[in-house]
């Protein structure tokens, strides 16, 4: 693989991210991505797939997901039912083996990108159960005695929101990248990519307001990149006049269309209270 990942037209990658992705792609080790919610962890896998022109196989992990489900599932109930009905299919056990996402990725005709999304949502033992499979990229199907092995090691991207600690043995096999919250310049690049024809001044006013809100102490959920992009989209759709954003009157600390930025009523109230206090001081 001589191709290097360097972001795409829709995704701004920082230098450290590029190095981590290229290392993971070249050595075919899983890449573990952490970061604040909304900083583009899941999107990264989509963009890697797009950049190297590979199909993306997504495995969204939930609290009930078992590692085995990623390999295969044996549908015993269906077989039981067929057996009672006297269906012919019942004689071949492989009719009741359902392929999981890992199997799909291992046998994909074209080199795929496998995204294991939010691995921390699952049970604490989940990553341990996948150790061997991700390390050797092969597993056995006990019901049929078949061995599924990857022709070529797929590119694996794993995201985590840090809700559970991942086991050491698992971490040792991964490259790790922490997406930190983008600084002002990177943010401008990101916005350029998403809204190429947005007015320059609108962006800078909006950004200023955005970072100010992030700095308000005590916010339960700070707005992140994805919220900023949503907000900008709304501002564009609503055709918000520039003056509204430029209004530096502290008594109007609540930004227009704040619903896109603040997702928590306690936070909205906090801002309103700050605005109220600013009004009182001015009097």
């Amino acid at each position: 693989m001589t191709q290097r990942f360097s972001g795409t037209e829709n995704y701004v990658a920082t230098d450290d991210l590029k190095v981590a992705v290229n290392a993971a792609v070249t050595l075919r080790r899983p890449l573990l991505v952490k970061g604040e919610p909304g900083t583009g962890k899941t999107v990264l896998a989509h963009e890697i797939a797009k950049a190297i022109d590979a199909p993306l196989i997504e495995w969204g992990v939930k609290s009930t997901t078992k590692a085995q489900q990623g390999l295969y599932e044996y549908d015993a109930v269906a077989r039981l039912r067929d057996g009672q009905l006297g269906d012919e299919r019942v004689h071949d056990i492989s009719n009741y083996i359902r392929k999981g996402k890992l199997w799909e990725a291992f046998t994909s005709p074209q080199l795929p990108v496998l995204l294991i999304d939010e691995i921390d949502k699952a049970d604490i033992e989940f990553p341990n159960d996948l150790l061997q499979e991700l390390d050797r990229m092969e597993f056995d199907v006990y019901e049929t005695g078949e061995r599924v092995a990857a022709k070529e090691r797929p590119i694996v991207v794993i995201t985590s929101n840090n809700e559970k600690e991942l086991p050491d043995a698992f971490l040792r096999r991964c490259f790790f990248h922490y997406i930190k919250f983008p600084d002002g310049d990177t943010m401008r690049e990101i916005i350029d990519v998403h809204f190429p024809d947005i007015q320059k001044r609108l962006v800078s006013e909006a950004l200023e307001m955005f970072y100010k809100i992030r700095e308000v102490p005590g916010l339960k959920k700070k707005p992140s990149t994805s919220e900023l992009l949503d907000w900008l989209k709304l501002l564009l759709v609503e055709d918000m006049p520039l003056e509204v954003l430029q209004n530096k009157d502290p008594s109007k600390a609540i930004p227009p269309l704040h619903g896109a930025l603040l997702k928590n009523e306690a936070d909205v109230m906090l801002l309103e209270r700050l605005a109220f206090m600013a009004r009182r001081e001015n009097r």
Partner: protein
Amino acid sequence: MLLNFLDELRSAGIRASLKEHLTLLEALDSDVIERRPEDFYYLARATYVKDEGLLDRFDQVFHKVFNGVFSELGEEQASIPEEWLRAVTEKFLTEEERAKIEELGDWDEIMETLKKRLEEQEGRHEGGNKWIGTGGTSPFGHSGYNPAGVRIGGESRDRRAIKVWEKREFANLDSTRDLGTRNIKVALRRLRRFAREGAADELDLDATIRGTAKQGWLDIRMRPERHNAVKLLLFLDVGGSMDDHVKVTEELFSAATSEFKNMEFYYFHNCLYESVWKDNSRRWSERIPTWDLLHKYGHDYKIIFVGDAAMSPYEIAWEGGSVEHMNEETGETWLKRVVDTYPAVAWLNPKAQRTWQYTQSTQMIRQIMGDRMYPLTLDGLDDAMRALSRKQG
């Protein structure tokens, strides 16, 4: 060089192993990166560090080990951002010198003075250092100072003179981070123990298949649903000296309520006596006898006290020692009753651990608790949960 780096990382508490080291070598061998110091830094970081809390420590070790190596490569020839220089002048030049230079108003002069000044600094601190000879080509290649201490205006990427690892961007992610609700939840999760209890309302597929194969007819087996079976009884100290710790206690409380289904909580003041209460606004009218609690909640409940344990020793050891009412039995008696009834007890103390030894009452309570007092920090909480979930003999 690289092995030395691995040693340094390990002694700094980053648990990198040979596995990671080999991965790094493999990556270097297969030319994953271009030959730039920054890329090497990024690659090493992605390989060795698996926890954003350790990123800052990694930056420091990287700086320590590779400091000087890269300047030997002539990296410093690159352009140096002006704001950085300004910051450095502020740090290394005296008030008068700055005024004088500003009078001259010539940036080159400032650079020149700064250079001399830095060389002096270097000479004083590490006389005979080899960098003085080789560093002559560039103004600031001696690296005798730590730019982390200099406030750099604006975070500019890709300016090569400020090395990325010296910026220490991840400093505030280190484990001194705030004890947020989410962090507490993660710590509390240690206490989870899943068990199947109650009505059998879930199909047990494995047992059904096994039963069917054995019997020869369809043998449906059911089982109860799996849920967190840990039961928790929380005693919270309110009022007085606890007012300083309201926020952290609140966070612990909100995390605990969402994490455990079987959780009960009661309030007390300073020390546990014959009654507790559930509602702080009616604490005088609606009291619940502590005896009732001991009888009501089985010994499989886990008890957590949250309090600063700071009071006068009389409040623990004397009858009638309570500051609020006439207690017929000592606080110690009541605490001991709880400790004797429940095998799993822990006391979480929001005060810093180093201050405990100066408060007699803290020592006393710690003794009553059988040394099971833990600071209300992430690590302390972790230890407490580990102790609580240990199998009680």
